[in-house]
């Protein structure tokens, strides 16, 4: 973890940017579906505005400039001066994509993304020339302030400068603004700096600014990270109060901000003090003047703002003691209140996950010791252990949930891929997402991005037809790609479904034969032909397009999914479309497994893969070919695999009568029966990856440590079956039989 506080605060800003970009995408998607209500438009505006504000605090000028121009256009939409249609919405999405790039560029210190300016110009062209300049809009938007609060603020404000309070003087709407800004130490500690805020203030218009140094203590007693300074500014009266306050929006709870319109008489005086002769300022090191005291005491002296007072006249709370319920002017009454959250460094969570893993192993060891001690079932130790086991399980589930995240951000990224890919190949495509709230381990989500991107591009490029072909086939011109996620028996299943032409199996087979991937005379089922797509180097595109054919094929996708302990299956129907199903573990840390024994080896089979267990009788077993058997299960024949033989522990048995089988199911619905010597127990095991040290081992997903300290391999039944020989009869047995 970095020790640089600024770097940490900045990193946290970029995390927030991610959330803001997510809500921006959400709102744009809502608008795309016809929700043009004020709240939705406001969400878009606020997301862009918040990114701009935060970026300003860190001096990320390029990001500020980009967001500002986007925000300006969204403000036109918000005010109803700019109508939304399909084309403008497309541009809003496009600009949001660029905004995400700008954020990434700012985060990684990269140059501004290419095409940003062109995108903004296209966006700004929506506004046309007929619109009034921003200043005029500000005036039309202006809301007069409540009188009662002005009086309070004026009192404190002008008292600071020894000016007559002029309480009877009603400020008029063109009177210049007087602003006093006093940052607290917390403002600096949170990574903000007046430098950026005051620069933004200066960007609003002609600002007369003076730094008040009077509160500075002697140099010897000065605490370098304590805040002593305050600033007084006079701003043009035509500025919108909201625009001025917006600059300080992000620091409103760590500073004191007083903003009032000067009265006629005060203005005359103001002119004098806004252009001060610096030599007249209070000498440094002198006793802190009444000015500083007044600034500190100012808000406390003000009249209590009535709860229903309009926002513009609201007085910010004193910096030293921010109230628990900070007013959030941007919160809409209809907006869903987000739950309280806390950001935790991922490293800490991983440490906790590891510790819980160790706890599970220890608990298993303890359980084994207790069992070996031969204590009666109803003894206090046994009941205590049982409660301990349940508690361990609960802790484990809770800890895993901390690492789990909804797939929504990932799906949103895919929205962009669809937009870009469809534009590149001139197809009309709409992405539908389902189950965005489905939660999966963070690492799984991160490592899923690349394979998913590739599959989405493939779906746009190969899966969907061109609009003309679709129309000719009686389909809507716009193709649909559905991206869905759901939990299914302890795993998460992500599907990418297109309503395109389906896999052209004839072409796939021809291609595979021409590339020498399969023999010319091969007889393959539909499913087997579909699976040819996963062979290394396979590409059906006759010509390399802008999107595909870059040498990265579905084999890479499958490897990536397998590396996550997942599987990928494909189904396709000519003329109707193709469906890719990815089945992934919810977590990469633990799994529920069945501990089995084969040839004196202890192994673990994931419980999620097992449908049922059975003991074989002679009637169940049928021979098929010289070396293979199938078993008869309720009217179906299921291939039989001898786990001991497949793993190379021993030769196939001469007889499987009385043997125990695990009936497993694969994602494509195929079942297989694995012969084991004994089932020992069901238990949760902590996954210890082997991939990094040993690479991919066919049939083996990972390893674990059992209660007795023994290491057991965790099997991947689907992969095992995929690579299996299927020999369940020795050659001699077969010949003799």
């Amino acid at each position, binding site marked *: 973890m970095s020790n640089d506080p600024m770097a940490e605060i900045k990193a946290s800003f970029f995390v927030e940017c991610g959330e803001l970009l997510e809500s921006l995408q959400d709102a744009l998607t809502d608008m795309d579906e016809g929700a043009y209500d004020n709240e939705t438009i406001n969400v878009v505006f606020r997301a862009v505005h918040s990114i701009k504000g935060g970026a300003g605090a860190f001096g990320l000028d390029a990001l500020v400039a980009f967001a500002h121009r986007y925000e300006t256009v969204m403000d036109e939409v918000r005010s109803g001066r700019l109508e939304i249609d399909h084309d403008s919405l497309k541009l809003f999405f496009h600009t949001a994509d660029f905004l995400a790039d700008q954020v990434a560029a700012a985060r990684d210190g990269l140059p501004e993304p290419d095409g940003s300016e062109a995108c903004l110009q296209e966006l700004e062209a929506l506004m046309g020339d007929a619109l009034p300049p921003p200043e005029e809009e500000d005036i039309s938007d202006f809301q007069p302030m409540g009188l009662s609060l002005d009086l309070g603020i004026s009192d404190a404000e002008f008292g600071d400068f020894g000016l007559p309070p002029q309480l009877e003087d009603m400020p008029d709407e063109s009177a210049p603004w007087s602003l006093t800004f006093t940052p607290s130490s917390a403002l600096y500690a949170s990574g903000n700096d007046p430098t950026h805020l005051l620069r933004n203030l200066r960007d609003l218009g002609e600002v007369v600014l003076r730094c008040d140094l009077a509160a500075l203590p002697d140099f010897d007693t000065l605490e370098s990270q304590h*805040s002593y300074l305050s600033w007084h500014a006079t701003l043009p009266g035509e500025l919108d109060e909201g625009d001025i306050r917006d600059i300080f929006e992000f620091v409103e709870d760590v500073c004191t901000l007083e903003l009032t319109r000067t009265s006629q008489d005060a203005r005359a005086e103001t002119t004098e003090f806004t252009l001060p002769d610096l030599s007249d300022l209070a000498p440094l*090191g002198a006793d802190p003047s009444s000015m500083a005291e007044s600034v500190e005491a100012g808000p406390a002296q003000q009249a209590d703002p009535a709860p229903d007072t309009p926002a513009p006249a609201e007085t910010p709370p004193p910096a030293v003691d921010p109230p628990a319920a900070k007013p959030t002017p941007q919160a809409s009454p209809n907006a869903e209140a987000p739950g309280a959250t806390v950001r935790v460094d991922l490293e800490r969570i991983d440490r906790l996950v590891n510790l819980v893993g160790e706890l599970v192993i220890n608990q298993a060891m303890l359980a084994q010791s207790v069992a070996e001690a031969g204590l009666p079932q109803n003894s206090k130790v046994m009941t205590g252990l049982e409660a301990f086991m349940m508690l361990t399980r609960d802790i484990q589930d809770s800890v895993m949930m901390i690492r789990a995240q909804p797939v929504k951000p990932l799906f949103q990224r895919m929205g962009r891929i669809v937009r870009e890919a469809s534009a590149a190949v001139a197809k009309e495509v709409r992405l539908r997402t389902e189950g965005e709230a489905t939660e999966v381990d963070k690492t799984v989500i991160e490592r899923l991005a690349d394979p998913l991107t590739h599959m989405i591009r493939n779906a746009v490029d190969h899966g969907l037809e061109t609009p003309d072909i679709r129309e000719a086939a009686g389909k809507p011109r716009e193709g649909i790609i559905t991206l869905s996620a759901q939990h299914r028996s302890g795993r998460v299943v992500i599907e990418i479904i297109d309503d395109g032409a389906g896999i052209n199996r004839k072409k796939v087979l021809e291609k595979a034969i021409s590339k020498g991937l399969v023999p010319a005379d091969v007889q393959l089922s539909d499913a087997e032909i579909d699976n040819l797509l996963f062979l290394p180097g396979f590409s059906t595109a006759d010509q390399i397009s802008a999107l595909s054919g870059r040498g990265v094929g579905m084999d890479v996708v499958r490897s990536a999914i397998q590396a996550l302990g997942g599987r990928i299956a494909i189904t396709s129907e000519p003329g109707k479309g193709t469906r890719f199903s990815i089945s992934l573990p919810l977590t990469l840390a633990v799994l529920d497994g069945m501990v089995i024994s084969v040839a004196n080896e202890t192994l673990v089979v994931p419980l999620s893969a097992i449908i049922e267990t059975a003991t074989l009788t002679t009637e169940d077993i049928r021979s098929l070919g010289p070396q293979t058997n199938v078993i008869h299960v309720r009217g179906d024949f299921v291939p039989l695999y001898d786990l001991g033989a497949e793993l190379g522990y021993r030769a196939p048995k001469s007889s499987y009568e009385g043997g125990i089988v695990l009936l497993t199911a694969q994602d494509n619905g195929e079942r297989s029966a694995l012969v084991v010597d004994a089932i020992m127990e069901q238990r949760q095991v902590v996954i210890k990856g082997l991939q990094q040290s040993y690479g991919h081992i066919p049939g083996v997903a990972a390893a674990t440590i059992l209660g007795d300290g023994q290491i057991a391999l965790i099997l991947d039944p689907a992969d095992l079956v995929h690579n299996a020989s299927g020999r369940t009869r020795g050659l001699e047995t077969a010949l003799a039989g």
Partner: protein
Amino acid sequence: MSALSLPAKLDLSTVEAFCDAIRARKGGDLVLDAGDVTLLGGLGLQVLAAAAADWRQAGHSLSITPRSESFDNALTHLGVTLNDLQSTEAA
């Protein structure tokens, strides 16, 4: 006369060390080199202003030279003049 270079970014992350460095040079004339400054924050400004007052009171000179363009711009943005941060007293 001693000399001290200002860090490129004089903000929360550097101000404490800078303040200590400048305190260590009390009691004599001092020239601060702000030629590499890209960011002058509020906390940095405080230290410079308080130091200048201290130097003035002690009758020593404190000057800031050379100065980067960013430094001079920051003074304008922060509403101070160079005189606020220097001491022209001669020992």
